[in-house]
Every structure is written in C-alpha cells, then in structure tokens.
C-alpha cells in the first residue's frame, strides 16, 4: 500500500497550476484534500505521472450567495459547508449532505471540487449538485468552459473533464421563491459510502402546490440520476402523505440499481423509496 513513483509540484496560483498540469501531460492529476486520490494511489489503482497540488490556491475557496444564486469554490472543504448556517432554505441539502461525508477528519480535508472530479456514484455532493442543477466552471491552460451537471458525469469515477482541466467553481442558479431542499442517505455504519442517497428540492406556490420538484438519487446507477417520473407526479400537487408515498414509489420504480457484495439491487431499490419518502415527509413537516 505504497504509491508507485510520481512527480509532485505545488502550485501557488491557478495559472501556475494549469500550466504545470498542461506541461505534465495527460497522466497528471490535481490533488487537493487527497481523501479519494491518496487511497487510490496507495492501492495502486491510480498511477498518475505527476501530482499538481492546488491546496494553496486561495482563489478557489469561498462560498458566496448573490442575488439568490450560490457559488462554491472548488477548494471549499466539506467541514466548511457543514458549518455554514446560512446554507438553509434551498441550500439546506448541501449542508446536510456535507455533514454526512465520511468522518470529521475527512471532511476537514476533502474538497467540493475533489468530490465532483472523483465522481463516485454514491458520493453525496454529486447527488446534491444534480438536484440543485449546478453548473461547473472548468478551466485549463487553453481556456474556460461551463459544464452543466447533467453532462458532467460520464460513469463511475469518470467525468467529461479533459486532462489538465480543473473544476474551479460550482454555480447554483437562484431557485424560485419558497424553495427548500433536504438530503437523506442510508449507510450501514456511520461514515460509510451510502448504499443509496436522495436529494429532494422543491418549492410550494401560494396554494401549497409543489413547483419545480427535483429529486436526485445516488448509489443506484453509474452516475447520479434524476427521478423524473416522481418529480412529474409531484408537480402541481399538494404535498400530502399519499402524494409523497406515490412519489417515493415512482422514484424506486424508475431506477434499476445493480447489486454488489454488500447490498443487492432489490435492496437499494427499497432504500430509494424509503429515503425519498423520508425526505418528502421532512419537507412536509418542516415547512
């Protein structure tokens, strides 16, 4: 469990980091908190030629709310989100999800951008980002582009990022008034990767009818997925217990998780219904 050899460079600015990565070629990787990459190196499952350390790039930190929209820098640590009391209302799912990532020492180091780029299908932040319709700003030595979350994940531990390209920020659009969000997951043990996770975002109009429901699921497919049928069923409905139950059922029916040694596909499907049901009942009760 000792990494194969690699070259290590520490960048002191974003420009330098991107230049170093470009020079190092396509087997270079950025490293921030190292909470996913270091274990992969130790197990020799990842063999980068170079590591470009971005931990000192202050320009990638910070959580900003402006005109109802939210920007989260790539280097924001999970513990920072967990301890941001102003992440409430529409952003509450972000704070809740951050608090469920691994164990506290992991949350002190792990970063927002790192979790996205690692793209574990059971990880919390990709699921919340999917429900909150984030757009990621990716920079490389040759320029900048915006990637909507719906196009960002390409498979388990895979994204559309090109070599040398770095997520620098996640942008969350301003939600409609009255939007709230919650996050639910189930793991067999505190701090484990979730067997299944659900982020639910919705607004209620003056008549108490659901508008713009977004339900994202983790741990049930190669990438985070939306529960479109459940969302559609909620649209325009009053969020009664039976409406919630029906949406939970549809969310489970709409996914087809595969199983592994720890949790069968059928079990994960049941968990989806349970978790979406629990998220919706919290949204009913906490209004």
């Amino acid at each position: 469990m000792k990494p194969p050899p690699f070259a290590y460079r520490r960048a002191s600015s974003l420009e330098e980091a991107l230049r170093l990565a470009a020079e190092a070629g396509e087997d270079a990787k950025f490293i921030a908190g190292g909470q996913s990459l270091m274990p992969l190196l130790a197990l020799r499952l990842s063999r980068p030629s170079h590591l470009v350390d971005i931990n000192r790039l202050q320009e990638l930190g910070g959580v900003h709310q402006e005109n109802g929209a939210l920007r989260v820098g790539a280097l924001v640590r999970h513990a920072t989100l967990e301890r941001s009391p102003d992440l409430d209302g529409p952003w509450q799912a972000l704070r809740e999800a951050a608090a469920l990532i691994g164990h506290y020492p992991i949350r002190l180091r792990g970063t927002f951008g790192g979790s996205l780029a690692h793209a574990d299908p059971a990880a919390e932040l990709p699921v919340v980002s999917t429900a909150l319709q984030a757009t990621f700003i990716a920079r490389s030595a040759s320029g900048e582009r915006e990637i909507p979350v719906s196009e960002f994940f390409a498979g388990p531990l895979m994204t559309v990022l090109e070599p040398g390209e770095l997520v620098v920020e996640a942008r969350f659009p301003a939600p409609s008034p009255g939007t709230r969000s919650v996050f639910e997951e189930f793991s067999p043990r505190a701090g484990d990767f979730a067997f299944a996770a659900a982020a639910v975002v919705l607004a209620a109009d003056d008549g108490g009818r659901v508008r713009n429901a977004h339900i994202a699921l983790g741990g049930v497919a190669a990438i985070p997925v939306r529960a479109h049928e459940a969302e559609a069923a909620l649209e325009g409905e009053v969020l009664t217990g039976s409406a919630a139950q029906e949406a939970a059922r549809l969310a489970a029916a709409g996914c087809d998780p595969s199983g592994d040694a720890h949790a069968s596909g059928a079990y994960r499907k049941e968990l989806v219904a349970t978790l979406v049901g629990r998220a919706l009942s919290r949204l009913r009760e906490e209004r």
Partner: protein
Amino acid sequence: MTSGYIGVSVERDDLAFLDGTACYVADVDREGQLYARVVRSPVAHARILDIDVAEALAQPGVVAVITAADIPETRIPIRLPMAETPYTHLFLQPPLAREVVRYVGEPVAVVVASDPYLAEDAAELVDVDFDELDVVSDILSATTQGTPLVHAEAGTNIVATVPLGYGDVEAAFARADVVIRDRLRMHRHTAVPMETRGLLAEMDHGTGVLTLWGAAKVKHFTRSALSSMLGIERHRIRLVENHVGGGFGVRGEPYPEDFLVAFLALRLGRPIKWIEDRAEHFVATNHAREQEHDLEIAATADGRLLAFRDRAWCDQGAYVRSQGILPALLPALHLPGPYRWEAFSVETRGVLTNRTPVGTYRGPGMTEATFVRERMLDKLAAELRLDPAELRRRNLIRPGELPFSFEPAPITYESGDFPAGFEHLLDEVGYDDLCKQRQVRRASGEHVGIGFAAYTEIGAIGPFEEARIVPRSDGRFVVHVGVASLGQGVETVLGQIAAEKLGVPMDAVSIDHHDTEKLADGFGAFASRSTTLAGNAVALAAEDLRAKAAARLDVPAGEIRFVQGQVREPSGRTIPLAEVGEGRGRFDKPHPTFSFGAALSLVSIDRETGLVKVLRHAVLHDVGRAVNPELLRRQLAGAASQGIGAALLEELLYDEYGQPQSTIMADYRMPTVEELPDIEVIVEERPNTANPLGVKGGGESGMVGTPAAIANAVADALGVEGARVWRLPLTPDRVREMLRHH
C-alpha cells in the same frame, strides 16, 4: 502475609500506548536494514508454470528476489497437535508456494530492496505464469462429488473429522416430545488489530545469534519452529516482543513471513524488515469462524433438554496452519455448553477451500458453537411457548452436580454456579422490567427484541508455565515469565500477584516477558491462560523465594520480610537479598478450565432499512477470582464490541472465483463508537477449586455469547420472520431480505 494487591483494580502502566512513546516493531530500525515485500498470488488456485524475476531484480535498490526454488523444502508445523490424522502434514503450508498456489494472497516470491517503496515497485514486476485450476470457493462444495481438490496429492478436501459423543442419543431422541432441526451458519471474519503484523530479523555475526523482533503470543514455539525450519539450534535464535497493538489470536503464530524474514536475514547477512500492510492483512493473516452446522435438538414437552446431534463443516481455508485442526475441534467441545444433556453426538469436519487459511480468533469455536446452540434453544422455546430465560433456567447444570463430566468427551466443568450466574445477569439488567419495556415500545410501533446466550468458555489450557523471580541488590524483583503481552495488561496482573505473594510494593516488581533469552520455556498468550498458568507459576516462584530466604535465616517462611534489599526476620537478623538466589515456580495444568458466561442484548430494528441497533448489551463472566477487576471488565467490554461487529457488520466475503471482496477497511466494516452501546459488564467470582489462586480465564468471554445474544434479540424483534435468522452478520440487506420474503 500479603500486601493486598490481588482483587484490586491497580491502574495499569499503559502511558506509552497513549503518548506515542510505545515502540512497535515498525519503530525498531537496525543499521543497514533492507525491506522485504512479499509477492502474493492474485488467483485462488493455479499451477505455477514459471516465475521470471529478472526484471524485478534489475530495478534500482533491489538486492534479492527469492522464490520457492531458493528456500529449503519445509512447512510450518502445528503448534497444538490434537486429533490430527496421519495425512494432516500434507496440508501444512510451505513458506513460498512451490508448484501450486491455493489462495489469493499466498506468498510466491519475496523482493528485498533498500527502501520499502522500491521493494513494492519491483514486486509488481515479478512475472508469474499461472495455469489456473478450478476453485473450491465455499465449504459445502468442498465435499461434494467431483469437486476440485485443494491438495490433489491428498485425494480429499477433508482435513479431519472430529467425532464426539456422550450417552445414548438414539434412546434420548426416541423419548422426545419435540425435535427441532435447522441449518445454521457462522461466517468468515477475523481479528483486525490496529497494528498489523511485522518482523525485523538480524544475524549477529559475532555471537552467531539470530534476533527476531516483532514476536508475540507464542514466541517460544515460534523459536522452535524456526529452529527446525532453518536448521539452526534453538539457542541461536532469540525472539523479542515489542509493544503490540492488538493480537486477538491472529498475531504471533508462526506464519510464512516469520520464516522468510529470518531466512533472508541469514542468507543476505543484513537486517530484514517486513511490515504487513492492511490489504495484506486481509488476505495473509489467519481468517476465522466460517462453518455450517446441521443441528437437531430433542426435548420434552415441559422444556427439558434431552439430546442433540450435530454435523458441521468447518472451513480450514487452503492450508492447515500452526493451530492445526482447532477450527473443527473447538466448536465440537463447546456445543454442549452449560446444559445438562442426557446424550449428544457431534461430528465436525475440517474442510479445505481455496481461501486464506483459518486459525483462531478470540473465542474460537466457542463463539460459533454458542451461536448455533443458543439460536436453536430460542427456536425450541418458541416451539414450546416458553420464555427463553425459563428454558435455560430449567436446563443449566446445578452447582451440586459439579464437577460435571461429559465423558468420554473431554469436557469437564470443575466449579461454578451456572444458574446463579444466569440469574445474576437477569437481575442486573432488570429482565422483568425489560420485558415490560419491550411491550410498551412495541405498542408504540417500535420493533425491539431481547436475546440471550449462556455458554462455557474454555481457558487455562496447559500444559504448564514457569516463572523465575530474580531479586536484585537494589531491592527490586525481576519476574521472568513465558507468556506474552498483547496489550491486555498481563504485566499489571502478574505484578499484582508477585507483589502480594512477595509482600512488597508493586513498584518493586517488574515483569519481563519480552525475550526468549530470559526463560527457557513458555507457551504464550492464548486460550485465556495467562493469569491462571503464569499467575500460579509466579505465586509458586514467590513462595519458593520466600522459603529459600527463610531457610537461610532458619525461620518459618511466614516470618521473613523483604525490605530495602535485605531479608529480615522478626528478631532483626538480616541477610542481603542478593544472596538468596532466585525463586522458581512451575504450574502444570493438564486439563483446561471451562468457565461460565452469559450475554443479554436488547436491539431495535428499522423495518424499512433493515438496520439493527444495539440498545443495550450486557455480558456476565465467572472468572473465579478477579485479580484486577477493572482490567477484566475492559477485556470483556472489548471482546463484546468485537462480537457486535461479528454479529452485525464484519464479513470476509469471497466471490465464486475465490477472489476476496473485503480487502480494505471500507469493505470490512468494523463497528465504530457510533454503532456500539455502553457495554454492561458483570463479573462473577466463584473461586476455581483447581488452582491455588482460584482464578479462571476471562479474556475471550465477552465475545463468546455476543453474536448469539444479538441474533436471538433480532429474531425476537422481527417476530414471525425471526425464525429466518440462521446466519450472520445481520446486515441491513439480509434483515430486509428476511422481511421481504414474508
């Protein structure tokens, strides 16, 4: 005359474990040392066609690469030979696979380099050409017709069959009002100490002595094993214990690496260091427990146990390691438990599979047997509509029946009071009140359950231990013993016994267990034996020293005192302590001691997710006499925590190709503080009549009944579906599965 240390919770001296000054084997460095990296088989069963080491050998920093062709033909011997067959030796493990690999993780070659990183880089370049063979991937297929053979030359996958019987089973079954039968399965799991294994070997060319640091548990036996395997005399091998970060039965047995590291130190003439990494630990260190039982119990309508029949398949893995066939023998010895059976017949089989070899883990055999028996007793109680506590009450052996023997089976209970112990547990946890609480909580929609287990724990296995007390001119006493410290506090306990028996303050005594140089013989730390065996040996050595001192002054032994480097008698005459010589003691224990224990668990189940939460967990153990009650309580609580992990979380999974699925901590789930309740510990002290100190073993008891009690509590909480609880661990997925099929 005593100083009153025995029975007192003297604080142990464990600061080094907390402040970072402990010296583990990884902290020991020798001038010029090299680092070994073991190349392990990536496949479960294959013929080795060719091993090409040229590329690895050409890497920077690499000093040597060895394969089976470079070492003598030798195999790791059995430490505790019992009921072996004439062909058991065919299954013993060579340090490096010679023609065939038989499990993922089996050592195939060793790379030695100047740096551990370079060694690991080069190890990847050792090119082994495998011709893959069919795999035996589970215990039941090991004995089916036409199955592949793990050791083709043996012609069978059955290592040993252990038959055990008592009374007339057929007659007892014929009289039964009720017979229940079921298949029950204990899963593969093992100890995961915080510190992985590690070794450092160095040959001193001046003295001709080979020193091995990192020894633990059974260092005298490991020395003998290395002596015969390496072909050098015992007195030229010295094993040194360092601080140890947990043993639990798996650390310190002679493993392939013990031979390889010592061999390389001799071959290369330089110190060789090897530190196991966590991924290696999960495939290289002994696994434990996996077995399946077909059990049949006969009882009367009023809940009297009559007899049982058991047939079991006990996994040995791919080789028989130093613990021999204990994985099949120990469950057989523990199936009767603390109950009065008229008859039983047991036939356990040790079977081979293409998986990591199986050894002993805290509470070996007894944990498996207790799960199987106690689960069946709850099924019987359900069948008879009897309170499970009442069923046990009616059948526990009464104190008037002790000593109780199941002869010809080698099981004898010397002393104790099983029913009183059981009632003590029920009283302490408030069983009647707990039953009422269960009713209230169920009425409010919660799914809670209570479960028990009562059991016997084998301990104090002999054959003997010796102790040597050497007085020094400064008034201190050095006590040399042959047992080992695995972090359990044995130094404190033996120090208390020595100080009390010598009549001196504890700080005048130091316990030396670190070094094979200091005591010719010793059997080590296993089977909850250290306090009974070494404790009584220390007490005898202290008596011997007092007698020798008294003889010099020609007074009765009770009249002398050891004061400031002097021996003093009442009238004031003294002689220097250093003139007395040393005290020697030897305590023989031809038969093991079985002590009584019981566990009770209260759990709740989330029926939607299948998650089991342990709300309360209590363990009771009769230790005979607690030398240090607080240390014992912590041992029991620690063992129970491991038992909770075994019951709910931990499992070493394999796929059908024999590939391990649990090789990192994220996949082998040990309980964290979030999953554990405060363990309630109750210590019973019913002195053992079979040794002078009156002590019994206790180090494993917390584990033994815990999985059984939790399984029974989960079954109780599930209600109707509870009858489906037949295997462990009770993961959320499995609990949901039991509910789904209803």
